[in-house]
């Protein structure tokens, strides 16, 4: 009976210890789970080295925003962290969070530049207009003794999307200018200008949140001069401001 009683006491003590440990673990577990480590980097990019790490509950002071990266200070050291990784408990005010969210949103204006297979430079700007974008484009080729240019105003529209890729179209009217010696808009190389109609299709590949690369197939038809038609393939970088 005595042995059984001691065994019972020992068991209950062990059970009580287990219960204490389990209860302690259950209480502490959520706070451990919330405390993640943040890795702050030397520069605003994921390839820059990590220079120090802090707990996600540490109070951090936001100093500067560059792209999608935020320079933070814990009072002693400074490092960069993606805005998306800044935790709720880092000490940023609601106004600061709103500002960061708003700053990361791409703006309405888009600018673009590139070159095409007719050895011409292309520049453009666009702004949303209902479901379309109003776009202005300028193309110029200059080989010294023979230069030509064109300027167009038209509408862009997204036709279809596939994952991150999209297909866009453009139709516009404009003006083609032929400088002396160029045979682009005039076969005889005269200095002239002509109205023109242009259509193009873009295959859009996003490089960054605000930047995409476009492969453009383009056809222009002169409505005056010698009514020549031109087709070209262009590579265009498009940036949302």
């Amino acid at each position, binding site marked *: 009976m005595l042995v059984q009683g001691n065994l019972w006491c020992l068991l209950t003590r062990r059970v009580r210890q287990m219960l204490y440990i389990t209860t302690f673990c259950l209480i502490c577990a959520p706070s451990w789970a919330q405390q993640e480590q943040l890795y702050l980097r030397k*520069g605003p*990019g994921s390839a820059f080295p990590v220079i120090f790490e802090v707990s996600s509950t540490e109070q951090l002071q936001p100093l500067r925003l560059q792209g999608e990266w935020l320079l933070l200070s814990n009072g002693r050291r400074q490092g960069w962290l993606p805005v998306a990784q800044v935790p709720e408990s880092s000490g940023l005010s609601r106004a600061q969070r709103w500002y960061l969210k708003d700053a990361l949103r791409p703006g309405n204006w888009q600018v673009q530049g590139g070159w095409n297979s007719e050895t011409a430079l292309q520049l453009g700007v666009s702004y949303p207009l209902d479901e379309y974008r109003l776009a202005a484009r300028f193309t110029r080729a200059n080989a010294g003794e023979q230069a030509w240019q064109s300027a167009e105003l038209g509408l862009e529209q997204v036709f279809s999307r596939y994952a991150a890729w999209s297909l866009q179209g453009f139709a516009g009217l404009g003006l083609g200018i032929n400088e002396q010696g160029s045979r682009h808009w005039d076969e005889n190389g005269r200095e002239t200008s002509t109205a023109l109609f242009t259509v193009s299709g873009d295959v859009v590949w996003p490089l960054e949140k605000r930047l995409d690369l476009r492969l453009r197939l383009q056809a222009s038809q002169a409505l005056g001069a010698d009514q020549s038609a031109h087709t070209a393939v262009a590579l265009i970088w498009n940036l949302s401001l």
Partner: protein
Amino acid sequence: MKYLILCLLAVPLLVNAETTDIYQPRIKVAGLEKSENISRRYGSWGVGVAQQAQDNLSSRTALNFTGRWFAGERWYLLGSVQLAPFNQSEIRNSSGQVLLESGEQANVLAGGAGYAFLQGAASLSGRTSYPWQVAVEGLMGEQYTGDSSGRYTGLAFSWQLLGDDYWLATEWRVYQSDDSRLDKLNVNKGMQWGISFGSYF
């Protein structure tokens, strides 16, 4: 009794006075307060000098002005203005016709894109380090040489040391102008290396 009545008469006056003191609406303004301000960096600007070495012409020093707009983590858009002397003595053809006048100037207006393919941190003392990146840059624009002009194309590699408020860069670039006048004289290609310094906006 009369003091009690006087006190009771005075109570509403006190209450009214308090309510007018309490009503002090505070005007709320959307946005960050001064103490919450987060500065934002959009891009960088800089000036620099470059040494140009060109086929069939003596080397010369160019002055550069550059602007970069950060388009993302690694990509940026680039604008550049370059001012440089082109040649010293005139060039004539066999019949004595002047093909290139003496002291012509070659000025370039170009834009393009850059991609930082290497990023890291550099330190001399071991105590302070600076982030750096190596970028490849493509440039297109026009080169205005004397009275003629032509399409300018350039490909550059740039090593940039990024300070908190200032940056320093070295660059190596190969370039070509499609100006037919220069092409005929075979003076339309070359390379340059230089150093630039600037700040951010």
